[in-house]
């Protein structure tokens, strides 16, 4: 590839965006009782890209993620995942089919170590049953060693070796977010949903996290969909951006296109209605 020096990487990753559509969302609507959270939204996520979903508070971003990973079931519309139209799907089925996510508020096992938390992300990949894992001989043991190796690679990737054995409850918020990303990575997902991966982080932590997300897309080829408030981060990271406002899609395109879109500017700055 023609990465021209140490400049911004997204352009290099974006080269893959001409490829197949991984997830296609068509005219999806979701409502809770009378409240319409999402109205007639369509967009797609292509394999290998970093796709950002942005919008003001209450725009329906998290609801959209929840629809994608099967936590909410839209009343209307269709979702096509890897070329197959998806029926009602449960979160664990989504996980098994290759969709992993992190949460807006860190959801880790606080009393467990970093290593164990990341390891827990492997549980879907474990083939031996509970009994064999407890006995811990032969194939089960070999399997665990293989998993541990994978987990160690992730720990190395995320540079969290120094907190490997520390209970995550004692870690800083920024590090906890990183561990959570590690756990999601451990599932080796095809599509990784990140719900505000940089919320509450300081500048340095944000920069670290951005680097991890970019490297993740580039080196592991993971497709990433992320919700983020920090505009600078989105513009640097994303290949394409979809903008929601009041549950409706108001723009979709490259960061530059979106940035100059009048509707987007209005939604963010607010206009007299």
């Amino acid at each position, binding site marked *: *590839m023609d*990465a021209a*020096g*140490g400049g911004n990487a997204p352009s*290099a990753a974006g080269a893959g965006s001409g490829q197949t559509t991984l997830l296609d969302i068509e005219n999806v609507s979701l409502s809770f009782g009378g409240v319409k959270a999402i109205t007639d939204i369509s967009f797609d996520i292509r394999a290998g890209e970093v796709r950002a979903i942005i919008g003001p508070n209450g725009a329906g971003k998290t609801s959209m993620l929840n629809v994608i990973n099967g936590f909410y079931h839209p009343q209307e519309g269709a979702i096509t995942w890897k070329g197959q139209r998806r029926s009602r799907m449960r979160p664990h089925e989504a996980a098994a089919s290759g969709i992993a996510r992190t949460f807006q508020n860190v959801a880790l096992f606080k009393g467990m170590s970093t290593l164990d938390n990341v390891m827990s992300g492997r549980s879907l990949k474990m083939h031996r049953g509970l009994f064999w894992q407890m006995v811990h001989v032969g194939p089960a043991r070999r399997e665990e060693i293989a998993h*541990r*190796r994978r987990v*160690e*690679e992730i*720990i*190395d*990737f995320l*540079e969290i*070796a*120094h907190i*490997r*054995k520390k209970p995550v409850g004692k870690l800083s918020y920024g590090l906890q977010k990183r561990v959570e990303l590690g756990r999601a990575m451990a599932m080796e997902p095809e599509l990784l949903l990140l719900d505000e991966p940089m919320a509450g982080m300081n*500048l*340095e932590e944000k*920069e670290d996290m951005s680097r991890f997300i970019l*490297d993740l897309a*580039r*080196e592991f080829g993971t497709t990433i969909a992320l919700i983020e408030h920090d505009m600078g981060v989105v513009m640097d990271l994303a290949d394409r951006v979809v903008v929601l406002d009041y549950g409706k899609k108001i723009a979709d395109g490259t960061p530059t296109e979106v940035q100059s879109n009048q509707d987007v500017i209005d939604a963010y700055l607010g206009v007299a209605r």
Partner: protein
Amino acid sequence: MQTLPSLPHYLLRNAEVRGGQVAMRHKELGIWREWSWRQMLDEIETFSLGLLALGLAPGDRVAIVGANRPRLYWTFAAVQAALGVPVPVYADSVADEMVYVLEHAGVRFAICQDQEQVDKVLSVREQLPALETLVYDEPRGLADENVAEVLDFAHVQALGRQARERDPNLPVVWRDGIDTLKGPDLCVMMYTSGTTGRPKGVMLSHDNLIVTCLNANAFDGLGPDEQTIAYLPLAWVGDHLFSYGQALTAGYCVCCPESLDTVTMDRREIAPTYFFAPPRVFETLLTTITVTMEDASPAKRAMFDHFIALAKRHGEAILNGESVPLLARLHYRLGELFVYGPLKNRLGLSKARVAYTAGEAIGPDIFRFYRSLGINLKQLYGQTEASVYITAQPDGEIDADTVGTPSTDVELRIAESGEVLYRSPGVFMGYYRNEEATASTKTAEGWVHTGDAGFIDDRGHLRIIDRAKDVGKLADDSLFPPKYIENKLKFFSAIKEVVAFGDGRSYVAAFVNIDLTAVSNWAERNDIVYGSYQELAAHPEVYAMVRGHVEQVNADLAAEPRVAGARIHRFLILHKELDADDGELTRTQKVRRAFISERYEALIDALYSDDPERFVSTEVTFEDGRRGRIEATVRIETVPLEPLADAAAAEPLREAS
């Protein structure tokens, strides 16, 4: 044993004599990987052949940029075996600092650890016309960058392997090349960190290093069974000896940690038998111990305090082999079981036969603390220009205030000005492309000016007072040794760094940097709320605590007639941490006095006025190289000085004036 002409010769000898023995370890993905001497030789040979295939010519300089990783250590030997000259560079220096060294040395190759270092070098590439090829160790983020001039370390090794397959005679040619190396040949160029001015490239020959290393190994009886952990900067001469020169000449095993953040844990797993650390590391460790113990249960704390007090009374005597009452000896044994043993295990020093500290004066109390635990911590005094060793403390002749007797083959002399001079087989060849500096440092007879003021005591031990140019006089002509005062304050765990002023002034005043680890812990326990370092540093309670420490130091100083005039009258707590990125510390974390005086001129003014506070705005450099400003109103405290009541103490002062 016969002395060999070059360091690569020692590599070949080790592969022959103890080929199967572990030469190097590296923790990777949570597991310690090992290389035997034979395997290591193969890694080095293939890389060396690869470099030759890329066109490395005799005398070419090769920069090494990165942390302590096996491949970077191998690079030293690989380059030397290919008749090139390795030039290690401080990995944490910013691009501007790095470019000076790379340009000055005229490097043709740069072997970098990772993307960060590669990007840094590439960013200043236009200024480095001689630079042709970059090689990286960790491919992460660089996978799609495998262009002609940025290569993977493994790729270069593959080139070497291919060349060897094509020409089976190549290893013989390679060894013949090594045989052309002679003792007086240039072995390595180490750039001094430069407390003053631009870094200078110290040229050391194979003889310089080999003789010094053999002497040092003999001095402490280091053999092939030692284990050390390599964690200090590669570009620092100390690490070059401990982790490379001495390891090759003695044939011992060097362990590379997983990352710099995991050193403490990794050290614990390795339990090195030979350990070196600058005083700062021992200070930090002690701070951690103190902080942890303050959080411990009362019973544990009582036990800890009891046995530490006992160690203070008898520990050092036991270590020095002096006579100690039997009961105390048994009591100490009990302490070893309950406190000292577990503590040493925590520190990763349970197997340490010899531990050294150097680089700066260590607080006597810190020094004694470790010795009282039964750790044979010693001091040495050295310089890059001397291939480290000038003096070292022999076992049993340990004193916190001295740096020991001259090392083997070293001659010592004190100039009339009080400056320490030495002459030894380790004395450097000269500064690279800087004859002027060479001439002003090294006399025609081979004596080297250290720039340190000191004297030799009645037992033949050298005592260093301060940098020769730093020792000053107050306006009333009483002695002002800044470092002496600073070190006294730095012993308090809450205080990380101190800069004392007083030369030509009427009283001594000081900048204090608080230690965030210790003070934040203290703040937490005392329900002190703060939002940032700056806020914590300005907190009245923190001021009160530091003031207490200053008063205590003043009481100490008052008791010593020679320095009683140098008590601290006014001090302030700096609103930011002194940082190498801002040029306030050297890369080896030494305070750059002149620079700080200039940068904080307004604050120094305030120290010598009656102002209770002063507003400052300071430019800072963030980790990513961007700049910003920190603004603060810094409070200044006055510590009233009691007139020296003791007539005896006051007497010499008057005499002096």
